[in-house]
């Protein structure tokens, strides 16, 4: 296969991985700090995409749409944190799974009720349309490249925030010992609401960015949510670094698997069965990757024992 195709697909995988990182970082922070497993994180992704599509339809501005996605998703995050999620921190994981599953039902049907069952479309802006020329004569979509760069900037910002700011110190302290930082005078419930809103805003932002590539529809969040789970299981729950490494691994495995596996089987099979076996295996590849990581490191690559 040609090198150009390989690099293009690797970039697509990187873009997919960056997007997964935006989802996974919120999930892993919420789990690390509050000990909460949040199935409704995919709903926040969906809310971001719908808010962006509605804002773009109303104003015609893509930047305003992105802002709307973050604001609405973060606002929805604050709302459910105060009404529901707060009551779940002290509960066991089963209760958390069920309550957030109930939230998915409410959000999905509520969105269907407001926007209808038909997918909405969010157009990428003119100034990000078209392709850009990279070395080796590769023409690559400007929009996807912009997603990769934006995601890397956000990742850097998150690392900086966690490592260097006062709020980051509190988040890390919260991961280590909740009672103690409460006793030291940190407003713990405000901190929890902030962390949850931060995760929600990142998920909403990811939803808006992807909404411009795919369609915006009810149920778009859960497949991404499950992939984000795979990411944090691979990376180690609670670790932002693990989320980044896991996300890029999963993104590359998935995207390259879809291209390379059918080609690989095509070497010694006829084209149609190579395509179908390759596609079936590719759809399983990230889960096989996860099983492999778990065999050797049950707590993930960067998990603390």
């Amino acid at each position: 296969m040609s090198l150009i195709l390989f690099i293009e697909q690797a970039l697509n995988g990187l873009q997919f991985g960056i997007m997964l990182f935006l989802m996974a970082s919120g999930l892993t922070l919420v789990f690390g700090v509050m000990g909460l497993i949040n199935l409704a994180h995919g709903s926040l992704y969906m809310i971001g995409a719908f808010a962006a599509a509605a804002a773009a339809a109303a104003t015609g501005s893509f930047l305003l749409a992105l802002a709307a996605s973050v604001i609405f998703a973060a606002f929805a995050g604050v709302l459910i944190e105060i009404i529901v999620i707060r009551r779940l921190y002290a509960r066991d994981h089963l209760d958390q799974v069920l309550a957030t599953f109930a939230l998915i039902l409410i959000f999905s049907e509520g969105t269907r009720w407001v926007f209808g069952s038909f997918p909405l479309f969010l157009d990428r802006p003119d100034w990000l349309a078209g392709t850009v020329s990279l070395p080796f004569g590769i023409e690559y979509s400007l929009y996807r490249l912009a997603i990769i760069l934006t995601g890397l900037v956000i990742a850097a910002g998150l690392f900086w925030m966690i490592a260097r700011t006062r709020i980051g110190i509190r988040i890390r302290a919260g991961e280590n010992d909740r009672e103690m930082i409460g006793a030291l005078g940190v407003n713990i419930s405000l901190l929890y609401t902030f962390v949850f809103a931060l995760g929600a805003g990142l998920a909403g932002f990811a939803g808006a960015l992807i909404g411009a590539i795919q369609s915006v529809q009810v149920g778009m969040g859960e497949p991404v949510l499950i992939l984000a789970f795979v990411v944090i299981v691979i990376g180690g729950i609670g670790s932002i670094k693990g989320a980044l490494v896991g996300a890029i691994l999963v993104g590359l495995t998935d995207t390259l698997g879809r291209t390379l596996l059918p080609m690989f089987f095509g070497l010694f099979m006829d084209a149609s069965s190579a395509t179908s076996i390759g596609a079936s295996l590719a759809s399983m590849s990230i889960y096989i990757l996860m099983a492999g990581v778990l065999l050797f490191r049950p707590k993930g690559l960067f998990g603390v024992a």
Partner: protein
Amino acid sequence: MRKETALNTALLALLLAFPLWAWAADEPFLITLTTRAVIFAIAGIGLNVALGFGGLVSLGHAAFFGIGGYAMGVLAFHAQNYTPLMTWPLALDGTTSMPVIWLVAIILSALLALAIGALSLRTSGVYFIMITLAFAQMLFYFAISWPAYGGEDGLSIYIRNGFPGLNTMDPIQFYAICYALLLLVLFFVWRAARSRFGLMLGAARQNPERVRAIGQTPYRLYLVAFTLSGAITGLAGALFADLNRFVSPSMFSWQTSGEIMVFVILGGVGRVFGPVAGAVLFILLEHILGGLSPYWHIYLGAILLGVVLFARGGLYGLIAGREVAHD
């Protein structure tokens, strides 16, 4: 405990009397509705073995439900099209005999549960939840992308599979089969819960260190429970596919896993009859709320939220007290 026994008896009597009434009143739709409730109950009983008795929060039981469904679909598909199931290394044909299909469904889902369990049980807590979910999702995508058996569109069979001496296309006769299987499964789980293994499993859920200290291996206990659990849910999957005469990848979907869990929770975790009450309640809600609004999932979500936040222990917890609710 006495209230619980009364509720158990009332449930079984209701599930016997209501379809007979519907049969007499010539309401085949209501019989089919009750059949769905009974099949969901079996699926829930399966999950309850892992979730309630073993404390293993599996969010991937759709995997076993789906494997059971596809066992039925694939076997019946080959039998009805007169094509061999496989020619190598053994020459095997499909079948339209329900008992054979059940056996295959149970064995396949037990093997799958053994494999998934062996990997997932290396972890615990939130990892376990996510990993079981991920394995079910893997099978979901596999079923979608494997074209031989319908891929995304699923697989229809023309007539329901046969059971010796019965006309399975008659709703009340098919119901009788499902009801009898429900009783069998209930009896089996009730016995298992009181056996040496069941007691040891409960001990491992509550305090694995102590179980280890008296020379037992919690991992092994969990794995057996998870395998049993998967096998029962797989049987329910085969029945569900036969009820609809249709299997599709949606049986593998994460929503299916969530719904099976809802049956267990609405009824009451860790009680042998809990999922039966939960499945009946679910079907009732679906029927009543679904008639009120096409967006009935909002109400279901609100009710589920209420149960989790304020009424842990489900219906059994409300009526019979909380003495055996999960810890």
